[in-house]
């Protein structure tokens, strides 16, 4: 269907504001055929805004969004796209198969009904009303509705939020199967683990901007590292200048810093400040990656209105 390396979806200097809040700020992004791209970031980073721009559900305040080189609202683009959005419910008094059958009819080359149900793990509940399904099953119906049109690209907006570990892993397997079948996938998530498990490329976003981009290995290398927490009289600027230090944050008396490796940094610090106290060395996570990459001092689970 799609030639390798063809640009499937792209944002060009795309900005989206909601009143005073800038949800997305001059973002350039390309998704190429065959890629599985994960847009990774904390809540409020602008992930959903990026998806909705690419799907033509909202307009950019500035810049542009294109799908297969077309306006995303163009039917010629939409028949090649399947979307799984963060929506609370679908009409509850229709059966699973009735939902899938209707949405399939919108597409020129849909998957056979049975195949859509099987791909989403819904074969046994096809005759059940949506209202009678469990949370995990409902999520799988949304996935079935995204893939039933046999699209060239799947957009999955936080597809596993609210799922337990087991359902999440099962879900990843179904996404991988679609990707193996040649489907381009663009998903958003705030789980590093999920991006790592699925993506061929991770785009890290925070506060509406792209802060890093690379293969999962590259991103993890930047995320891996040590967090050092202590009390020290050394100046922030001096600490930032130490080799291997990626970020420094001082909160009252406590200093937190992120370093590729803890030992050389600590040796240097102890030599310069013998009074250093309350020392802790911790493994770094996604939060620390954001600290390092953005100099951002807020925690990753902080919600901003967007």
């Amino acid at each position, binding site marked *: 269907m799609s030639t390798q390396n063809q640009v499937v979806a792209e944002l060009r200097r795309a900005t989206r504001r*909601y*009143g005073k809040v800038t949800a997305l700020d001059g973002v350039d992004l390309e998704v190429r055929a065959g890629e599985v791209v994960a847009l990774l970031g904390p809540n409020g980073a602008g992930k*959903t805004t990026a998806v*909705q721009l690419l*799907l*033509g*559900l*909202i*307009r950019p305040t500035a810049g542009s969004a294109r799908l297969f080189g077309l306006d995303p609202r163009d*039917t010629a683009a*939409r*028949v090649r*796209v399947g*979307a799984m*959005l*963060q*929506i*609370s*419910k*679908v*009409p509850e*008094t*229709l059966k699973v198969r*009735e*939902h899938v*059958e*209707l*949405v399939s*009819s*919108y*597409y*020129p*080359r*849909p998957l056979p009904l049975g195949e859509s149900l099987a791909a989403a793990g819904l074969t046994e509940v096809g005759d059940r*009303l949506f209202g009678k399904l469990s949370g995990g099953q409902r999520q799988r119906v*949304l996935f079935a*509705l995204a893939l039933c*049109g046999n699209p060239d690209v799947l*957009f999955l907006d936080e597809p596993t939020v609210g799922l337990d570990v087991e359902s999440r892993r099962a879900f990843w397997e179904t996404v991988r199967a679609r990707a193996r079948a040649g489907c381009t996938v663009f998903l958003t998530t705030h789980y590093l683990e999920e991006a790592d498990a699925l993506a061929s490329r991770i785009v890290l976003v925070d506060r509406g901007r792209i802060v890093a981009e690379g293969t999962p290995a590259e991103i993890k290398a930047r995320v891996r590292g040590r967090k050092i927490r202590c009390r020290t009289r050394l100046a922030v600027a001096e600490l930032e200048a130490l080799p291997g230090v990626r970020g420094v944050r001082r909160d009252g008396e406590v200093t937190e810093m992120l370093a590729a490796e803890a030992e050389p940094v600590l040796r240097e610090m102890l030599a310069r400040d013998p009074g250093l106290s309350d020392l802790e060395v911790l493994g770094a996570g996604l939060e620390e990656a954001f600290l390092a990459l953005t100099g951002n001092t807020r925690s990753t689970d902080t919600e901003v209105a*967007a």
Partner: protein
Amino acid sequence: MSTQTMAAGSRSLGRIYTLEAKSELLKLLRLPMYAVPTIAFPMVFYLLFGVAMGGRSAGGVSYATYLMVSYGAFGVVGASLFGFGVGLAVERGQGWMLFKRATPMPPLVHLAGRLTVCLLFSAAVVLGLFALGAALAGVRLPAAAWLTLVPVLLSGALAFGAFGLAIGYWVGPNSAPAVVNVIYLPVAFASGMWFPIQAMPRFVQELAPFLPSYHYTQLALKVIGADLGGAVATHVAALVGFTVVSLFLARAGFRRDEGRTFG
């Protein structure tokens, strides 16, 4: 659908339409909250007021005949406002309409499916009332009148379906049922759907010509000679104008949705 040629990569609008209508119908039939009041209420009211007190005269015809027609109009307006208005508002609230906008769903085919089901429910109410009127209340009309009443009454589904669409796009999912009820019942009274307009207080009589539902009811009553004598053209013009304004509002609401803040 034999016209469907999946291998050639085309989709069939006829098949989409059929499935849209089928889904909408099943959705509403399985929702007693909609199906029962929409179809049963006008008939129950008719049994209580039309059949039981049908002997009195109203607007020059028997009360049973008057109410059979005016409750028909009442039922069609209800089916349209609740089916289109509340149904759409609820699905917008769930994010379902947002999802559908991300699909290649042809919006006009979707609306045609909804309208078809609205017409089916309307027809069920109208024909049910006719059956009660003829069988239990002794309503006798010339064949031409019966046949004219059906399309005249069903035309209300277009006008009030369009208004329901506007409500669905502008009113929130939680307030939509309340908003529709607040509009529906008083306006039905003031439009002569429950009592002949001549029997209403003076201020209601003066207000009525400003209500589209009044013109709609008058058109239907004209078929049985129980109207106030206004020109057909006036009533039709009022309804067409109302429909156009409603569609314009609905379109503006649809556009507004595109620019709205989501998550």
